[in-house]
């Protein structure tokens, strides 16, 4: 599949507020076509019309570069805004809940032991308030983790799109825009994702501790029932993540232009997992 289509799919699957924040790949392609056309027209026209033709070509190129820069600005703004949100939420969640989790795990352990002695057929709605809260907290952390990873994906896909479009530009117009532009992009805030990565890892660590704790008292639970249905019922982040993984997998599986700057294919276990999820998913 072509990148433009993949990007579209990704955008469709994104969280609603993100939909218009992605790269305007199509628009850039159209502008590029305009540049090529106008340059061709300029060079082939007779001399009286040449100057205006050339002016047109120059203007088109200028517009292209201008759009590129405008896009980068947009990414930066959105990225930093999200980053700020995540920093706040991350601190709010993980800080408080590490303490809560430890405490809750202990309490829950006692409760579960007590409950196990009671009627097993009773609906779980009689669970303790604490465990409900804990569940909500866990969900929130996982969602936060998911959103942050999606932000990383946002950054990656936009970078990829930019790289592709300037590569096309260089190829079609013979200019050397790619190198300096990419260098500049590499220094942009939206590409500097180290902070978010770190927060993501911290979330992972927190959740591992949580799961370990919950595994203790749910040791007897069978994993027979397919849990996917429940998870898949919630939309947004989960589906978006799946879509993102699919996109990456496709991006890296096959290409029409191999070159020095191509990425190797993704490891196959992804596809297995994804296929399972897709089948069971919404």
């Amino acid at each position: 599949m072509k990148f433009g289509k993949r990007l579209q799919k990704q955008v469709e699957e994104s969280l609603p507020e993100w939909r218009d924040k992605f790269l305007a790949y199509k628009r850039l392609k159209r502008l590029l076509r305009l540049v090529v056309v106008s340059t061709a027209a300029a060079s082939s026209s007779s001399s009286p019309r040449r100057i205006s033709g050339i002016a047109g070509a120059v203007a088109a190129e200028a517009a292209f570069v201008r759009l590129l820069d405008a896009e980068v600005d947009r990414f930066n703004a959105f990225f930093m805004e999200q980053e700020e949100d995540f920093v706040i939420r991350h601190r709010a969640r993980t800080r408080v809940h590490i303490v809560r989790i430890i405490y809750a795990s202990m309490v829950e352990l006692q409760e579960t032991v007590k409950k196990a002695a009671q009627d097993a057929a009773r609906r779980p709605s009689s669970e303790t308030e604490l465990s409900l809260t804990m569940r909500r907290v866990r969900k929130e952390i996982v969602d936060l983790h998911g959103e942050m990873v999606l932000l990383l994906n946002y950054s990656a896909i936009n970078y990829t799109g930019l790289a592709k479009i300037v590569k096309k530009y260089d190829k079609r117009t013979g200019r050397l825009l790619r190198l300096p532009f990419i260098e500049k992009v590499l220094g942009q805030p939206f590409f500097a994702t180290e902070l978010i990565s770190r927060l993501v890892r911290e979330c992972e660590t927190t959740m591992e501790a949580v799961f370990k704790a919950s595994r203790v008292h749910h040791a007897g639970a069978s994993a027979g029932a397919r849990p996917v249905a429940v998870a898949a019922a919630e939309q947004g982040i989960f589906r978006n993540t799946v879509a993102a993984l699919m996109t990456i997998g496709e991006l890296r599986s096959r290409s029409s232009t191999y070159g020095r700057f191509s990425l190797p294919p993704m490891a196959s276990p992804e596809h297995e997992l994804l296929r399972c999820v897709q089948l069971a998913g919404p």
Partner: protein
Amino acid sequence: MERLSTNQLYSSGVPVTVPTSLPSIPASLDESFPRLPDPQNVLMERELRSNPLPPHQTAVAPMRGHFHSSTGSVGPLCSPPAVRFSSVSGPEQYSNPNLYNSQAPSTTSSSTLNYGPQYGGFEPSITDVEPTWCPHPVDGMLGYSADISGGNNLTGSTSIGASDDLTKQSEWWTDFMNDDWKEIGDNPGSAETQLVVPPVQTSISVHQPATQQTVSSQSGEPLAVVAPSPTAGSNTAKARMRWTPELHERFVDAVNQLGGSEKATPKGVLKLMKADNLTIYHVKSHLQKYRTARYRPELSEGSSEKKVASKEDIPSIDLKGNFDLTEALRLQLELQKRLHEQLEIQRSLQLRIEEQGKCLQMMLEQQCIPGTEKSLDASTSAEGSKLPSDIPESSTAKEVPENSQNGLTKQTESGDSQ
């Protein structure tokens, strides 16, 4: 911004077909562009989007020509815009390291590639932020204007600036600078523009105290990501701050000291935090976000419990309902972790590829083989040919880099970042 990039094109020696109506520009561009300060570029590029071409065809060329002649003046040239924007010449005057500590990428590119995250028109505002670097640019500017007037006999009338509102001045200066860059070649040698320049500067110098405040408000703005070349030149209110966890921690401490998120005021928090590059606008918006983030969990606590309970009813497996939810969460987390991993891999690969591309480029350039830059980049856009054919294509004239090329292309085999 096209100004920026086209200049890059020029300076990289690409045979750009410059329209015949711009005769002398390429030469002067080549020489002077690298020396031009960033703020002008950033400013220009921003303004280009918002203000399409007001009529003063101020020419850059004659100005720059002038600058060339007076050797010291390019340096101080930085200052007048630096009065309102950060000075490229004095990055050490900025103290914003903490804001960008999370960023590793080194920008080897010159200051011309700097991107300020701040955009919008400039609106000088008096803020509480202390002036950190006022003296130097102002001095420089004074020196500059003296230089200008000395060199040019263009002792401008200070009438323009003297009693003007600083805002009006800056807007006008903005437009002026913009058009400079935009119409770069269109009007070489319009003498009026030279007249225009010194009055602005002298009038700015007249407003020194106000300027200092402006300057300080500018210095209070967050830096561009690229640490070595800080640029501002943007509206304080719209400037983007990069909130790191450490900074946020200080924020939370300050808020707690003031009695909680409801009681704390932006001004109080700002004072307590004592962070150099924070403005009240940043604090205000951050406080708002903080409040909603804390308020929402409290709000949803009641409803989400019910939601969670009902979700458990869905699988209609009694005891297992609880476990399933955890399992589902775990699965979701697993998937997300997987995506994260892949993204990290992809990113490091991309960085490495670019890095090696640059190394190769340098090596080829050192070999002094003509047309190597083009062929290096051209080979990356070589279409349809699989790896083996890629190699002979790009290594026609180079023996030494061939091995490393082989290694590199093999590495990136069969996949395309496209």
